[in-house]
C-alpha cells in the first residue's frame, strides 16, 4: 500500500499542535526545511522541537511562534553564529517564552536510543560534572549497580513525529540514505510516527537491491513525501551542496524581529508550497549548488 502523501497533508494530518517533532537528525545535512516551513504556514503551535543540533530551522520555527519547548544540544546558525530568534525567545520571551531542556549530542542520541530500545533510560559517563544536569530533568546521576561508579541516566525521549530526509525511497517506506547519518537510525526507531522526505521516489526493486543501505524497517514508516530540494539550504549528498550564503543572509535578516518577519513573509508565508520557494531561489542559484561531478560507489554483489 502506498504511503505517499503531499507535504501539506503530512503536516496537516500527522502534526497537530502540541506534539513533539524531531528534525535535523543528520546534523548539518539532510535538514527537513520543507517540513518546518509547512508547519509555519499551517500555524502549528506549542510544538516541542527535538534534535541534536539545529542549523537555523528551529530558529525559524521559534521566531514564527510555533514552539513551546526545545529539547536539543545546540540551536543556532553553524556557519554564521547565534540564532537570533532563539535568543529573543529565551532572553525576552518574544514572540513567546520557550522552555529549554539542555542535552549534549551524546545524551540526545542516548535518549533516542533508550526510546528505540523500549527502556526508560540508558546510562553513560558523559555529562557528569556539567550543568546540563541542572537544566535538563531527563539527566540524573545514578550509581552503577556493578561497580558503584557514578553514571548519568539519560531518560528516553520518544518523539511524536520524525521528519527524515533521504535521497531515495519507495512508496512503502523502504529508503536509502547516505552521508552523515548522525542520530537518524535511533530517531527512526524511537519516534511514534516516521515521515520520510525523499529527493526521489524509486521502484521497490531499487531499494531491495541494496538492503544494507536501507535506513530503517519500512513498517516503521508512516508516510513518504516526495519533495525534491526539500532540505535546501542544507546539503544532501549526491544531490546538492550547502547554500552557505543563504545561512548568512538569514543571519543578517533575522537580527531584528522586523527583519525576521520580512524574511519569513518572503521565504515562507508568501510562497504556497515548496515549488514557490524553489522558483524564488531560481535555477541558477540551485545549479550552483551542484558541481556536476558524480562520485559513484563501487558496485556491491549480493549474488549467491
Amino acid at each position, binding site marked *: 500500500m502506498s504511503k505517499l502523501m503531499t507535504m501539506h497533508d503530512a503536516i496537516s494530518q500527522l502534526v497537530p499542535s502540541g506534539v513533539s517533532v524531531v528534525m535535523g537528525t543528520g546534523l548539518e545535512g539532510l535538514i527537513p526545511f520543507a517540513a518546518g516551513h509547512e508547519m509555519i504556514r499551517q500555524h502549528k503551535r506549542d510544538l516541542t522541537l527535538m534534535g541534536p543540533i539545529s542549523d537555523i530551522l528551529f530558529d525559524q520555527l521559534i521566531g514564527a511562534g510555533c514552539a513551546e519547548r526545545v529539547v536539543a544540544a545546540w540551536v543556532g546558525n*553553524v556557519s554564521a553564529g547565534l540564532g537570533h530568534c532563539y535568543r529573543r525567545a529565551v532572553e525576552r520571551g518574544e514572540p513567546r517564552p520557550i522552555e529549554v531542556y539542555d542535552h*549534549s549530542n551524546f545524551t540526545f542520541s542516548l535518549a533516542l536510543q533508550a526510546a528505540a530500545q523500549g527502556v526508560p533510560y540508558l546510562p553513560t559517563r558523559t555529562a557528569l560534572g556539567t550543568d546540563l544536569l541542572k537544566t535538563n530533568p531527563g539527566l540524573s546521576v545514578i550509581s552503577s549497580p556493578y561497580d558503584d561508579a557514578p553514571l548519568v541516566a539519560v531518560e528516553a525521549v520518544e518523539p511524536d513525529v520524525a521528519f527524515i530526509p533521504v535521497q531515495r525511497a519507495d512508496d512503502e517506506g523502504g529508503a536509502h540514505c547516505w552521508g552523515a*547519518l548522525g542520530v537518524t537510525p535511533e530517531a527512526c526507531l524511537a519516534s511514534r510516527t516516521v515521515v520520510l522526505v525523499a529527493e526521489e521516489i524509486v521502484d521497490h526493486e531499487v531499494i531491495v537491491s541494496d538492503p544494507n543501505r536501507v535506513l530503517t524497517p519500512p513498517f516503521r514508516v508512516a508516510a513518504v513525501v516526495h519533495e525534491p530540494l526539500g532540505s535546501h539550504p542544507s546539503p544532501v549528498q549526491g544531490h546538492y551542496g550547502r547554500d552557505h550564503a543563504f545561512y548568512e543572509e538569514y543571519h543578517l535578516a533575522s537580527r531584528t524581529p522586523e527583519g525576521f518577519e520580512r524574511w519569513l513573509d518572503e521565504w515562507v508565508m508568501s510562497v504556497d508550497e515548496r515549488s514557490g520557494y524553489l522558483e524564488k531561489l531560481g535555477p541558477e542559484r540551485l545549479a550552483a549548488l551542484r558541481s556536476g561531478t558524480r562520485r559513484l560507489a563501487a558496485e556491491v554483489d549480493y549474488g549467491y
Partner: protein
Amino acid sequence: MATDYTPGELMVAAAAREIYDGEVVFVGMRLPLLAFCVAKELHAPAAYGLFESGVIRDRAAPVMPYTMCDPPNIAGAAACTPMATVMSLLQRGDVDLGFIGGAETDRYGNLNTSYIGNPEHPTVKLPGSGGAADIACLARRLVVIMPHERRRFRERVDYVTSPGFGEGAGWRERTGVVGGGPSALITTLGVFEFDSSTRKAVLRSIHPHTTVAHLREETGGILEIPDQGPVTAEPTTDELSIIRRYDPTGFWTGAQ
C-alpha cells in the same frame, strides 16, 4: 621562520603541534580542522579525524568545509557512521585528543557555551553544548581554542557546559569524569597548560607581538602571568603554506 602571519594562523600552527602521529582526534570545525590538515601533512600522517556527525577521515577534505556535513567532507571519508559510533569510541577511551572552543572560561579550564547570566533568566542565550560536553568529559586530552578577551576570563563561569578541572585538583576523579581534561588552552594571546598538582592554567608561552601587560589586562587577574616566559613558536613556512592552501582567502584565519 615566517615573518608575516595572522593571529589565526599562529593559533592553527600551535594547535597542529598538539596532534601526534597515529592519534584519533575529535576534530571540530574552523581552526582545529585547519590544524588537523597541517598535522596530517607534516608530522601526523597516520592520524584519524572524527566528526560528531559520524564522519571519520584519514585525510583532509580537498576543500575546507563550512560544516562537518558538507558533501566534500563525506566523499572519500574513511567511514561514515552514525553518531553513536564516534560517541562510543569517545566513551570507551579510544579518542586521544579532542578540540573545543568556548565563550568563557575560568582558571580550571571549565567552559561555558550555554548561558551568560542566570540560566533561569539569562542575559545571553548561547547555542549550547553540541558535542562539546561529551568531548570535554571523555577525550583522553582536551585542547581548548578561544579568543583571549577580559570578559571571557571569569572567576567562575556562569554555567559549566564542558568541564575542565572543575573546582581543582581531584575534582574530575571525585565526580567520575573519566577523560583526561584540558592539556592546553590556545588563545589569541598565548598558550596555557594546566598544572599537574593544582590543575590551574599556567602560561606555557606568550605569542610573539604580545606584551605581558596586554596579556595581564585581558586575563583580568584570574591567572598569574609571569614577567618573562617563553614565546610561542611562530608558524613555519611549511605550516603557513598548508594553512593558506586550505584557507586561500583567509576566511577562517584572516581576522582572529
